[in-house]
C-alpha cells in the first residue's frame, strides 16, 4: 500500500483527473441533496430499509428466490468466487456460447469473472463505456461508479484509435459514435448477457439495474439469455423500499435526481412479449459476506449501496486514486470491505491509510459509520499482532512520557534539546529517520521555548482577573437596566 500510494502521488495525470472528477461529483451531489430537502430523513429511511433487510437476510433471500422462480427465473447459490465464476463458465460452455456482453458490475470484478471466462476461450465485452476503454487498455477500474476516472482524454483517444485502426478525431461526439457502433455489433452478436444487480426486491423477485448509458438495459434486453450476478446483501424487503433507494442512490452517486435508466426485471420474457431474454439466471454470491453477519461492529458495512459518495469526499482517495488501494473496492468503503471480505493480512494495511476525518460517514446515504469501523479494524489488526515494531515502540515511549506530569515536563525539555540542531525559525527541518519522513513533505513546528504548561499559572491568574472584571461589569450593567 505504501509503495502503491507513493507511486500514485508521482502520477500527475491521474491525480489531476481524479481530483477534477471527484470535485465535480461532490459539488453535484451537494446540490442535488439540497434540492431534494429533508436529506437526513431520507438517509434515515434508507438506512432503515437496508438494516431491516440485512438483519433478516435469510428470510428475505428465501422469499426473493421463491419470487424469482415464480416469475420463471432460476436462482443459483454460490458460496464463493470460484463457485460463482465456475458455474457461469460451465453454463456458457455447456451451451456452446462463445460471445458474451457485460454491463458494469463490481461483483464480477471481485469474483474475477472475466479472467475465468477468457481462459475458457470466451469473448467477453465490457459495455459500460468506461469499462470498455479500460478493457481495451488492459487496465482495471479505479472507482465504483466512474471506473475510468483516472484516465485522461489523450489515453482514451489512443485506446479507441487503436481499436479503430485509424486515428480518431478529438471530438466527443465522434468518439461516442465510434464506441456505440462497435458495441452495438457486440450486443447483437452476443449469445448471453451478464449483469450485476443494484437492488433485489424480496417481495416481488425483481432485480433492479441502474445505468446512465443504457448498457444495463441493453444487456438485459438484447441477448437471449441473461445472467445476473448478485451479492447476497443487495436485497430490500418491499417494492416501496426500492423507491427510497432510488431517491438517494443517483443523488449520492453522481448528483443526478435520477439515473437515466432504472431497469427493473421480474423474470424472463413472458408469452406474447416481443423482446427480452428468454432465460434468466440470478447467481447469488456470498464470498465472505455471511461472516460479517451477527458481528455488531461490522455488519452494517453490508448496507452499502455502492454509490461511491465516500470516495468522492475522501481526502486520501482524492490524492492517491483507486488503484493504490490494490483491491477491487477502493476509498473508505474499500478500506473497510476489502480486509473484511478477503484476507486481513493482504488488505490489513488499508484501514491505516485513512485520516479518520469522518467525511465518508457524513456522505454515506445509508449512514454507515465507516470511520468507526476503520478504528475497529485497526484495533483488530493490533490485537492480531500486526502492528509494526517501530509503531509499538513509539506508543510505548508516548505512554511513558504522557502518563506522568513530571516525566512529560522532563520529556519536553529533552525533546527540545534533541531537536535543537534541526531547528530553523519556528520549524524543524531535516533530521534523522523517522523524523525525516515527516519533515521532508510536511511542516513540523518546533517546541516553543516557553511551554504552555509552564506558563499556565500566570495565564490562570490573568484569566481570573478578566473574569472578575467581566462579572463586575455585568452586575453593574444589570443595575442600570433596573433603574430604567
Amino acid at each position, binding site marked *: 500500500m505504501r509503495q502503491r500510494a507513493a507511486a500514485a502521488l508521482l502520477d500527475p495525470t491521474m491525480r489531476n*483527473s481524479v481530483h477534477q472528477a471527484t470535485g465535480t461529483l461532490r459539488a453535484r451531489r451537494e446540490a442535488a441533496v439540497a434540492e431534494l430537502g*429533508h436529506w437526513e*430523513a431520507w438517509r*434515515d*429511511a*434508507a438506512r*432503515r*430499509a437496508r438494516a431491516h*433487510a440485512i*438483519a*433478516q437476510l435469510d*428470510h428475505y*433471500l428465501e*422469499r426473493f428466490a421463491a419470487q424469482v*422462480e*415464480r416469475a420463471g427465473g*432460476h*436462482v443459483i*447459490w454460490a*458460496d464463493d468466487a470460484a*463457485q460463482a465464476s465456475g*458455474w457461469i463458465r*460451465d453454463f456458457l460452455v455447456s451451451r456452446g456460447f462463445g460471445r458474451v456482453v457485460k454491463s458494469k458490475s463490481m461483483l464480477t470484478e471481485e469474483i474475477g469473472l472475466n479472467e475465468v471466462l477468457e481462459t475458457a476461450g470466451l469473448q467477453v465485452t465490457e459495455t*459500460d*463505456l468506461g469499462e470498455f476503454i479500460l478493457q481495451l487498455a488492459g487496465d482495471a477500474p479505479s472507482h465504483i461508479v*466512474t*471506473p475510468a476516472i483516472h484516465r485522461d482524454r489523450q489515453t482514451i483517444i489512443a485506446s479507441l484509435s487503436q481499436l479503430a485502426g485509424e486515428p480518431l478525431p478529438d471530438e466527443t461526439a465522434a468518439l461516442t459514435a465510434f*464506441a*456505440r457502433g462497435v458495441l452495438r455489433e457486440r450486443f447483437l452478436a452476443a449469445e448471453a448477457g451478464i449483469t450485476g444487480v443494484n437492488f433485489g426486491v424480496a*417481495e416481488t423477485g*425483481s432485480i433492479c439495474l441502474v445505468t*446512465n*448509458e443504457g448498457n444495463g438495459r441493453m444487456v438485459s434486453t*438484447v441477448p437471449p439469455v441473461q445472467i445476473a450476478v448478485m451479492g447476497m446483501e443487495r436485497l*430490500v424487503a*418491499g*417494492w*416501496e*423500499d426500492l*423507491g*427510497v433507494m432510488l*431517491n438517494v442512490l443517483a443523488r449520492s452517486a453522481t448528483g443526478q*435526481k*435520477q*439515473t*437515466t435508466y432504472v*431497469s427493473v*426485471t*421480474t*423474470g424472463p*420474457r*413472458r408469452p406474447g*412479449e*416481443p*423482446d427480452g431474454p428468454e*432465460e434468466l439466471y440470478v447467481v447469488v454470491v*456470498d464470498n465472505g459476506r455471511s*461472516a460479517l*453477519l451477527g458481528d455488531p461492529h461490522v*455488519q452494517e458495512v453490508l448496507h452499502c449501496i455502492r454509490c461511491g459518495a465516500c470516495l468522492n469526499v475522501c481526502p486520501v482517495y482524492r490524492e492517491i486514486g483507486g488503484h493504490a488501494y490494490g483491491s477491487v473496492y477502493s476509498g473508505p468503503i474499500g478500506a473497510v470491505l476489502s480486509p473484511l471480505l478477503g484476507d486481513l493480512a493482504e488488505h490489513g494495511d488499508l484501514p491505516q491509510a485513512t485520516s479518520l476525518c469522518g467525511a465518508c460517514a457524513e456522505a454515506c446515504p445509508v449512514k454507515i459509520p465507516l470511520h468507526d469501523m476503520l478504528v475497529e479494524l485497526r484495533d483488530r489488526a493490533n490485537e492480531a499482532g500486526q502492528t509494526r515494531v517501530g509503531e509499538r515502540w513509539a506508543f510505548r515511549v508516548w505512554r511513558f512520557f504522557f502518563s506522568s506530569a513530571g516525566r512529560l515536563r522532563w520529556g519536553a525539555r529533552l525533546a527540545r534539546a534533541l531537536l535543537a540542531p534541526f531547528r530553523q525559525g519556528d520549524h524543524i527541518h531535516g533530521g534523522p529517520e523517522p523524523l525525516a519522513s515527516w519533515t521532508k513533505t510536511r511542516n513540523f513546528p518546533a517546541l516553543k521555548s516557553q511551554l504552555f504548561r509552564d506558563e499556565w499559572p500566570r495565564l490562570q491568574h490573568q484569566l481570573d482577573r478578566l473574569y472578575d472584571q467581566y462579572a463586575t461589569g455585568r452586575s453593574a450593567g444589570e443595575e442600570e437596566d433596573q433603574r430604567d
Partner: protein
Amino acid sequence: MTDGPAVPPAPSSRAAFLARIRHRFGVTGEAAQAAKGDQSPGTPGGDEAGGRGGLGALEARSYATTAGAEPPTLARRFCRELAAVSGEGRVVEEPAALHAALHRLVADGEARKVMLAEDEVVTGCRLEAVLAAVGAEMVAAGDPQAELGITGATAAIAETGTLVLTSDAPWGRGVSLLPPHHVALVPLSRLVSGVSGALALLRARSLLAAGDNPVLLPSSINLITGPSRSADLAGELSLGVHGPGRVTVFILAWWDEERDGQASR
C-alpha cells in the same frame, strides 16, 4: 424449473447457503434479533423519520413544489426537468398540434425509418398518415436500422422528468431503446409527482392484471430520464452511448382515458 434447457449442477444449495446465515445470526446475533416478518420499515406504516405514510409522505414533504399538484403544473415541471437533462418535452393541446410537431421532426431530421409501438395512445393519435406524408418508412419492431421509435408510456414522473415504460404494452423493450431517437406520447392524466406514485401505480396495475398473482410485476419496467449519457470520456458529457441520444416527449392535454382518447370537450 425442469422445463427449461439443461443447466450445469448447482455449486451450492439454498439450504446450505441459508443455514450459514442462520448460524451466523444464531451465534452472535445481537445485531440481528429483530422480529421476522415482511413489514418493511422504509414504506407505508413506517415510523418516525419517514413520517406517517412512509415514502409517499417523505416525498410529499420533499417535493413541496408538485406533491398533490394539478396535472398542468405536473406537466410544466416534467418538461422543465426533462430539459435539464438534455431531453425535450412539451404539452400539445390537440391532435393537429401533435401532427404538425411530428411532421416537422421527421421532415427536418434524418429520421426516415420509424418504429411504431401500437398501443392505444399511439394508435389513437393516427400517426401513420402523417408520417407517410413526409416520406417516413415504417419498419418492424426490432429492426436495427430504425432511426425513430415512437411509444406511449405507462406513466411519467414530474419531479425528475422520467418516463415509465412497462414491457406488458405493445412497445416491448426495444422500441424505446434501440433507435437513436425516442418519441413518447403521454396522456396528461398519467403524470405523477414522484417515484413513489409511479411505484404505487405499478403495484396497482399488477393487482388488477392478475388477482391470483398479486405482486407479479411486468417482466421489465424501465424508468427513463432523458437521453443516454456518459461522462466516461474524461468527464466530458456524451449523449446516445447505447440508448437514444435524443428523447422527445409530447404530453397530450386532450387525451381522455375514459373516452379512448377523444377530447372530453
